[in-house]
């Protein structure tokens, strides 16, 4: 077994042009819509900036920074320690809990927002019980607060860190830990000096996802009265009807996101861990006894309860009481159609995202790593931009393209127009390319460069190496990538809301039509439907990651 760091890895300077062209093309196509919106910054409206700076912007910047740092820290701590707990220790219920801890991933944040306040708010069952026990004026932490927002967002976003950390622990760190122990390191020392450094890339990648999701959120935070820059952007757009001003301020979100990406690269460091000679044997978890075992079970169960079971139960009781009442759930007859549309859209998005991810990540091995790396980072930009902004950018890009085609008399009615299925998938792919690329890249980075060069030396073309060496070795990561994109695409609302063809309603659209009119009880059944559907890929994911390495 050997552990190679990047300094030891030799890379060729010049690569094959076709791979470079492919990944640059993906980057260009992905960046155009965002760039079209960002052009408003080139002719800035000083008045808007002055007004915003004089009034809300300073507070919004502070709130955004606080929220991002808070959610990032809590998610990383929670995700990493839970991954460590279920990987390194044996306690009652470990198997089930290690699986159940991923479940919150299926909960869309716009549903979580109203469910959290309904469960834990002043009128929710928890506080009602509390007041019954301790009197009318008994103190209870304020739910609608920055702390509330940080807790709620962390509880849905920690699974990203948890998943990646758990996978890294199992695939790589286990054997390294055992080697360190054999070489005489104490358990604590082996953890600190071997395991944590090896987890760094996974934690950094998971943390980056969490930060992006937090930055682009504008639904959940409003339930907690937290006013981020993104919330401000939407108020300018929807309240003063000034899209240009809104997109100018939106570039601030982009700056935050770029900072986060930069931070991730620093945090990941130059570390790159590849294992040759197959996977290690995995952990032999240490058995916990007595109160420690109880504490471990209780802690993990508590997280699952608060993050998933309680909100899901709240939705279920609403759904049942609605079904019993005479008004029922509106549009229930169309359920199959909404479900079908959601699935078609998800399959299309996942297919295109995976194709693009696989080609661009492989291009890094076969093309100039620096150029391709830059292109891949650029194509990830959509993940850092709120959904409606991506959607608006796609509309602008399509209008421009349409004008261009008209000028050369090449009308393609329907296909390129706003409201075509193609445009919708285009926007989805831009938004969710990053999780796909990142996960595939993480998998590929574990394939030693020696494997690539050996195969090439033996006469395989890059394409053969991609299919026959890279993909089989990175198979788990490819599946993880597909699943992450699928879950995100199933939950995505704002893009579909803006760009879908007339009559092409999805499950989230159904939920939102009701939730936006504050008909939360009636929205409960469709909301549960999304969660159940999103559970399917989450379960696939768990299954993949739990398979004992052969």
């Amino acid at each position, binding site marked *: 077994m050997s552990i190679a760091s990047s300094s030891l890895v030799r890379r060729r300077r010049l690569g094959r042009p076709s791979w470079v062209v492919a990944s640059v093309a993906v980057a260009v196509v992905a960046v155009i819509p965002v760039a079209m919106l960002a052009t408003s910054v080139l002719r800035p409206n000083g008045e808007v900036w002055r007004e915003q700076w004089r009034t809300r912007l300073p507070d919004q910047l502070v709130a955004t920074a606080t929220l991002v740092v808070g959610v990032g820290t809590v998610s990383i701590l929670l995700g990493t320690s839970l991954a460590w707990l279920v990987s390194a220790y044996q306690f009652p219920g470990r198997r089930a809990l290690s699986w159940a801890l991923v479940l919150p991933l299926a909960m869309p944040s716009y549903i979580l927002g109203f469910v959290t306040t309904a469960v834990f*708010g*002043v009128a929710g069952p928890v506080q009602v019980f509390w007041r019954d026990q301790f009197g*009318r004026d008994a103190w209870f932490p304020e739910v609608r607060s920055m702390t509330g927002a940080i807790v709620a967002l962390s509880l849905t976003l920690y699974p990203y860190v948890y998943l990646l950390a758990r996978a890294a622990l199992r695939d790589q760190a286990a054997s390294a830990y055992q080697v360190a122990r054999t070489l005489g390191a104490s358990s604590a020392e082996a953890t600190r000096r071997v395991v944590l450094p090896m987890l760094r890339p996974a934690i950094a990648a998971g943390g980056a996802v969490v930060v992006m999701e937090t930055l682009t959120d504008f639904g959940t935070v409003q339930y907690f009265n937290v006013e981020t820059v993104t919330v401000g952007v939407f108020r300018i757009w929807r*309240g003063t009807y000034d899209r240009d001003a809104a997109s100018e301020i939106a570039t601030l979100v982009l700056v935050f996101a770029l900072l986060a990406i930069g931070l991730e690269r620093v945090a990941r460091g130059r570390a790159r861990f590849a294992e040759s000679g197959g996977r290690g044997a995995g952990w032999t978890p240490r058995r916990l006894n007595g109160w420690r075992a109880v504490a471990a079970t209780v802690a993990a169960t508590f997280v699952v309860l608060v993050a998933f079971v309680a909100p899901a139960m709240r939705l279920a009781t609403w759904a049942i009481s609605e079904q019993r009442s005479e008004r029922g759930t509106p549009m229930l007859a169309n359920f199959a159609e909404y479900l079908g549309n959601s699935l078609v859209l998800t399959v299309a998005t996942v297919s295109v995202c995976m194709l693009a991810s696989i080609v661009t990540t492989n291009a890094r091995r076969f093309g100039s790593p620096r150029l391709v790396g830059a292109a891949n980072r650029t194509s990830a930009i959509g993940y850092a931009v709120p959904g409606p902004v991506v*959607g608006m950018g796609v509309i602008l890009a399509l209008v421009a393209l349409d004008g261009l085609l008209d000028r050369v008399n090449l009308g393609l009615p329907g296909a390129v127009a706003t409201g075509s299925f193609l445009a919708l998938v285009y926007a989805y792919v831009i938004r969710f390319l990053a999780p796909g690329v990142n996960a595939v890249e993480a998998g590929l980075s574990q394939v030693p460069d020696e494997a690539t060069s050996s195969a090439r030396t033996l006469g395989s073309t890059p394409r053969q190496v991609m299919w026959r060496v890279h993909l089989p070795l990175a*198979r788990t990561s490819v599946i993880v990538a597909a699943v992450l994109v699928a879950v995100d695409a199933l939950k995505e609302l704002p893009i579909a*809301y803006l760009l879908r063809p007339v009559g092409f309603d999805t499950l989230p659209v159904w939920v939102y039509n009701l939730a936006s009119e504050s008909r939360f009880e009636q929205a409960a059944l469709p909301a549960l439907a999304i969660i159940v559907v999103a559970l399917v890929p989450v379960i696939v994911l768990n299954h993949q990651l739990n398979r004992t390495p052969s």
Partner: protein
Amino acid sequence: MTPQSLRRPRFLARSGALVVLVVLGLVVAGCGAGGGGDGAGTLTIYSGRHYGVESAFEQYAEDSGIDIEYLTGNDAELRERIAAEGEDGPADVYLTVDAGNLWAAAEDDLFQSVESDVLDTSIPEEYRDEENRWFALALRARTIVYNPELIDEAEVATTYEELAEPEWDGRVCMRNASNDYQQSLVASMIAANGEEDTLDVLRGWTENAEIFANDVELLDAMAAGACEVGVVNHYYLAEMLEEEPDAPIELLWAEQDSRGVHINISGGGITRYADDAEAEAGKAFLEWLATDGQNTLVADNHEYPANSTVAPEPLIRERFGVDFKRDTLRADVLGSFNERAVELMDDAGFG
């Protein structure tokens, strides 16, 4: 490598090919879906109003024999989309909530004028655009509510402005500044009192109010004792009372000794891009909504009909009444103040 992994490339290649086929199929299907859909005899409606519209569409389609297609969305985005799609787009009618949205659509030149005696006689003048580009179809009153277990009716503030007084510190629940209805209320105060006084009131509200993300949560919190008084759209209370007739919240019509309670509207118009036949069909649809279709559109949601000859549904008629003083501010003037309302709330740091 294990023997199993040697077999994988073929599996992956096959699934890759399958994926490509699926995508191609979807693209072809998608082109069909995107391209068609606006033939003769089909009325396409873009709606920023999301609740209760389906039953009205279905009812009208059944009565008239016209096919109706519709798309719900957020208003700012629907307007962008109508503008971007232009002549190629399918939208014939744009329905929405909030005067500001209707005003903005008219500003963006998305509507055409509609000459209709039916609409002129059934919709009061203050609830339609000066150039007949849009018409209100439903009225929603944003008024004061209180929890009678915590405060006597006699002590409840009777005006929005009063809620800015220091005595109300910590006793008021209000909606956040991002909300259309809150913006519209502030716009009506600018129209009535001017910007300076409105800013003062907003500063007072900022001091006094607890802020909520939606009226339903606000009412639930009030019933649980979070605030003595609050400001909500009347139909959210109606809905609460429909579920729990004994909920401890009462309604008080605001500003009865001054300009009258703030009324916001939900309404619609015909898009500029509808051709003559579509515009004619759209007009007939609006006329139906303004007359026979009034209650199909508004009753479920407990709104007041914009057509005063139509009786409101029983719950609001009995519990809230119909004889209260309404602010007669023209809806187009109200809409024009929306932008300033947002800026003043920014200035005061409200919500």
